[in-house]
């Protein structure tokens, strides 16, 4: 079993090199042509002895989330890893240190916790590392070698990735780590093999060679660059900071400008200023930053100014859990602010979606002259997936802006209520386009006006123009998967949770349950017709999401008035497939009983 789909968990304390080992493993396997999904758990503190877990799922076919069971657990620190023995499947492997340097209290060694159905592999990690490099520090590389030896993973790609990883360090460090890998490899190859996790070779399509590893935040960066971002303004906040850091390095290479501002209010303020002046402009933040930005979003809506906001959610409210994931800022993203301030909100469900939504957000902001929010969460921002870069540029370049020809009275109407409720936008520097953008209600020229008729007409304009976004070219705003036609259980989902939803749907189908799933990428305006059509096919509807009350379920039932079964988890980690599957089984059973 498991020959085309294995998951490896590496667990240790901060400082053991846990995350680094996971990084080498996933890059190597992606280089070999496997599909990879990886997600690391780490503490909020930079130093100290927090627990780190790196999980890497390696498969020959596309996978959509991590599995709830791992095939292999590697312990770099037993006191952290003991809690994770339970996630290893029957006949799965537990690899640990068998020659501890100090006396171990009874029950403190991981071997005491391995179930009879699991296979223990004791390894003298420390001794092998010391013999190879003179220090115990390379234990994390020794275990990678052991893993490769045990399961016959190709060694040369590992060596290449290890050499690249330590390229910036002194030559001796790289060489030492290569010796550590080879020593581990020898031990693994010599070990007696009791299980059968040996991987099938990767399926090499035409595209395999171009596959690359990317996080959600990395994909956002690529999307921004490919869409020709001109300016970016940001303020550091976990888990969005890496978007700003990556753009700070890359944007200036093509003349783009990144500025770290004094707070989130100035970040979005400057983004609107740059958008007003004709730039493709963006900012990135998390929930607490978005809370500070919503007043400016209202200004962007009122003054009809393009702006792109990347928002990566984390545990809330308030400072909450900065390094844990959650989907609890949907309400703020969709509704936050004063007045009727409708905006576009996109929530990608995987890393490739982050790339596509990022680039499309600039097109849409420009096309519909409005702020666009791309809503991620920590699980999506930080998880790695193998993606295949597009062969041709998927995003439209910046459109030339120009004021419309003056009408009868010779004056430019910046907010003319024209075709599709959008108007011709002039940018500073253009003759004949002078106007004042304002957060006050205004007439077609942009002059302040609070007449009842004008407010009604302009509100209609601002709302109706966004409906075009529902048919924006080359963007999936929602999609149905699974069984066609009527089904017993339909799962409706959004954001990062959709990977677990798809895996659940496949598992339910395998159990004989008629099951379908729909992902909704555009949360505002909501694709009500498509959702209604899907719900009409579903006997029961389950909405799993990582928040307390079901913010997405509220959004859908508010628009459609259909009762939905909610499944809400607030653990700070991704939802568990088994948890969703139990609900699906229960709903299917209740339905057949009825």
């Amino acid at each position, binding site marked *: 079993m498991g020959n085309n789909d294995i998951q490896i968990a590496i667990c240790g304390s901060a400082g053991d090199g846990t995350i680094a080992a996971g990084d080498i493993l996933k890059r190597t396997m992606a280089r070999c042509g496997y599909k990879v999904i990886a997600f690391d758990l780490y503490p909020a503190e930079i130093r100290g002895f927090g627990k780190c877990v790196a999980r890497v799922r390696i498969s020959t076919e596309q996978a959509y989330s991590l599995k709830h069971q791992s095939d292999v657990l590697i312990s770099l620190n037993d006191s952290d890893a003991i809690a994770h023995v339970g996630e290893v499947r029957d006949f799965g492997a537990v690899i640990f240190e068998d020659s501890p340097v100090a006396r171990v209290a009874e029950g403190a060694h991981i071997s005491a916790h391995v179930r009879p159905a699991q296979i223990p592999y004791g390894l003298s990690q420390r001794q092998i590392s010391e013999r190879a490099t003179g220090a115990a520090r390379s234990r994390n590389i020794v275990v990678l070698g052991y893993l490769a030896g045990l399961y016959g993973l190709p060694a040369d790609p590992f060596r290449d990735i290890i050499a690249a990883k330590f390229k910036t360090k002194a030559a001796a460090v790289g060489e030492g780590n290569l010796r550590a890998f080879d020593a581990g490899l020898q031990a693994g190859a010599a070990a007696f093999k009791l299980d059968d996790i040996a991987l099938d070779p990767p399926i090499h399509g035409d595209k395999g060679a171009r596959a690359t590893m990317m996080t959600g935040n990395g994909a956002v960066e690529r999307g921004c660059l490919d869409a020709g971002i001109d300016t970016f303004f940001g303020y550091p906040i976990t888990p969005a900071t890496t978007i700003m850091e990556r753009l700070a390095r890359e944007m200036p*290479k093509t003349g783009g400008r990144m500025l770290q501002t004094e707070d989130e209010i100035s970040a979005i303020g400057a983004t609107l200023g740059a958008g007003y*002046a004709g730039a493709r402009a963006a900012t990135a933040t998390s929930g607490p930053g978005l809370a500070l930005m919503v007043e400016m979003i209202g200004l962007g809506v009122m003054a009809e100014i393009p702006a792109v906001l990347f928002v990566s959610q984390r545990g809330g409210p308030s400072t909450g859990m900065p390094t844990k994931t959650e989907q609890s800022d949907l309400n703020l993203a969709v509704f936050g602010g004063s007045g009727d301030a409708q905006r576009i909100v996109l929530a990608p469900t995987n890393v490739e979606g982050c790339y596509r939504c990022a680039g499309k957000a600039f097109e849409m902001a420009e096309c519909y002259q409005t702020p666009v929010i791309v809503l991620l969460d920590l699980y999506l921002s930080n998880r790695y997936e193998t993606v295949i870069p597009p062969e041709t540029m998927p995003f439209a370049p910046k459109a030339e802006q120009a004021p419309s020809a003056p009408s009868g009275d010779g004056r430019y109407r910046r907010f003319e209520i024209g075709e599709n409720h959008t108007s011709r936008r002039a940018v500073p520097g253009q003759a004949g386009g002078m106007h004042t953008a304002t957060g006050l209600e205004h007439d077609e020229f942009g002059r302040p006006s609070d007449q009842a008729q004008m407010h009604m007409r302009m509100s209609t304009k601002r709302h109706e123009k966004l409906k075009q976004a529902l048919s924006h070219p080359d963007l999936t705003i929602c999609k149905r998967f699974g069984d066609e036609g009527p089904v017993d259980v339909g799962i409706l989902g959004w954001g990062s949770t959709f990977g677990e939803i798809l895996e659940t749907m496949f598992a339910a189908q395998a159990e004989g349950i008629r099951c379908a799933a729909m992902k909704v990428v555009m949360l505002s305006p909501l694709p009500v017709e498509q959702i209604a059509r899907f719900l009409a096919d579903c006997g029961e509807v389950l909405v799993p999401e990582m928040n307390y009350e079901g913010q997405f379920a509220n959004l859908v039932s508010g628009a459609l008035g259909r009762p939905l079964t909610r499944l809400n988890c607030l653990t700070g980690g991704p939802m568990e497939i088994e948890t969703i599957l139990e609900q699906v089984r229960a709903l299917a059973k209740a339905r057949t009983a009825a």
Partner: protein
Amino acid sequence: MNETPGPVYIEDTLEQIRGDGHLGYRSALLPTWCPGCGYFSVSEGVTKALNDLSIPGKDVVVVSGIGCASRFPFFMETYGFHTLHGRTLPVATGIKQANDALTVLAVGGDGDAFAIGAGHIPHAARRNVDITYLLLDNGIYGLTKGQASPTSAIGFVTQTTPYENRDEPLNPLMMLLAYHASWVGQAYAGRPHHLTQMIAEAIAHRGFSYLHVLSPCVTFDKTDKTYANLDLEVRDLPDDHDPSDRMAAMAEAAKADTPSLGLFFREERATLGDAMTEIAERASGNYPSS
């Protein structure tokens, strides 16, 4: 310094106003300010300064926040952005980041700048964003009908300080000097010719220029920063004041009871736009490494 008016003939004045072109910078909207408001002097000064500097209206963006002073862009025939309360400088910074070629004027009042917006001023100043900040200080919130502001005097009675204001007023000039603004000056709405000249100098300066304009609110302040009081209080900066001497400028700025008019401080240094150009060169490997 007192500008003694000579005889004025209306025909001459009309001919002069129509002839020199500065009315081209005025929009068709009538200002919403009260008759006698100091902001009329500033508005007149800006149109004349832009005209004197021959900057076309299409290349000018007037950015403001919220308040009486912040209605400014509507009365200008330029591009304009009337933003949120206190957020003038971030938006102006964004505009300048998008297009260095634009002339960006940020306009705001004392409440907009030094209450809600105070956190942004040091950063626009230290980055030396190449914009001009015209701070119209009347020491009161006018648009909300008369409440105390961060520059209101101790003892000032307003709707929100019926038992007299007790908060020490800020000294904006000293703050801006400490924030490393690269051009700091002060003018008075009751000295319109000097004001116009200072506005033109501030716009011509390459970098962040801060012009503090003392400007009476004739409706809600009958006792403190009135034309009658300010006419007696204002002074010229001493003839020997050296505008390259930051500490001397600080000493002059500290004399808040007898405000001095003129250029307090000026230095030439790299702007935010210059920094961005240098960063782009470093990133593309064209910059000599140190």
